[in-house]
């Protein structure tokens, strides 16, 4: 295995461990964060805050570097416009997230629990991703 997939494997493992450690693999905990009018569980807010605090300096470093350590260039987004697809897609995602408490990372991680619902959600999510491919590409 060359360096790039190996680093990706390590990063994936850290990410998956982070989801499991933080409790974000549990959709009930996510829904309880989103339920401001119920028995609110603020944990997700701290997960986001810690992830932002640790990763933000990396963007500062990246901005001063011409290329990453193991690749020819940074493959990072360059667009700055707010188009209907971005905002509409975010709204559709927010609806699904609010109904289930699952977003793509936890949807994968929760497979390790072996719950049938986890497989149903993942299959449906993959179906939704492939269905988007059937739409005409953005102009």
């Amino acid at each position, binding site marked *: 295995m060359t360096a790039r997939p190996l680093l990706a*494997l390590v990063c994936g493992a*850290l990410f998956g461990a982070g989801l499991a450690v*933080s409790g974000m693999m549990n959709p009930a905990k996510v829904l309880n964060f989103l339920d401001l009018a119920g028995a609110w569980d603020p944990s997700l807010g701290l997960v986001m805050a810690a992830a932002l605090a640790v990763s933000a300096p990396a963007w500062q470093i990246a901005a001063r570097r011409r290329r990453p350590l*193991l690749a020819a260039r940074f493959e990072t987004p360059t667009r700055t416009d707010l188009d209907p697809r971005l905002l509409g897609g975010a709204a559709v995602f927010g609806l699904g997230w609010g109904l*289930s408490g699952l977003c*793509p990372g936890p949807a*994968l991680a929760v497979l390790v629990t072996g719950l049938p*619902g986890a497989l149903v959600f993942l299959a449906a999510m993959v179906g939704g991703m492939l269905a988007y491919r059937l739409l005409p590409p953005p102009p």
Partner: protein
Amino acid sequence: METSFTPVSALAGGALIGLAAALLLLGNGRVAGISGILGGALIRPREDGGWRLAFLAGLLLGALVVTLAYPPAARVALETPLPLLAAAGVLVGFGTRMGNGCTSGHGVCGVARGSRRSIAATLVFFTVALATVFVTRHGLLAG
């Protein structure tokens, strides 16, 4: 399922997620957005020496190791009924591809980068998710 506020594990887990995002950026020059990584793996599985598949395998491995070392981490509740769960899955898959990102790509990486698009997308999906939970748990349709 009732859950309690777990500040220490939330901060520790969040720091691991942030570390993963930082290393993937500085090492491979890539954004740790799970919907983008999974979407790319579905469409172009062999591109870039399979780093996407390696990342996804690692994600499962990391979650598995934690649940084996600490079994309570595997105590999760999928409270949404199966048909609704399937519908939600389609919405999450479709919406994250349409909007070019999810909680990790926009919410963590994009916001950390100060991206205008990611900040807007994050505000939208959080607002819609909050409203959705309010309606399903406290609205007219709630039991």
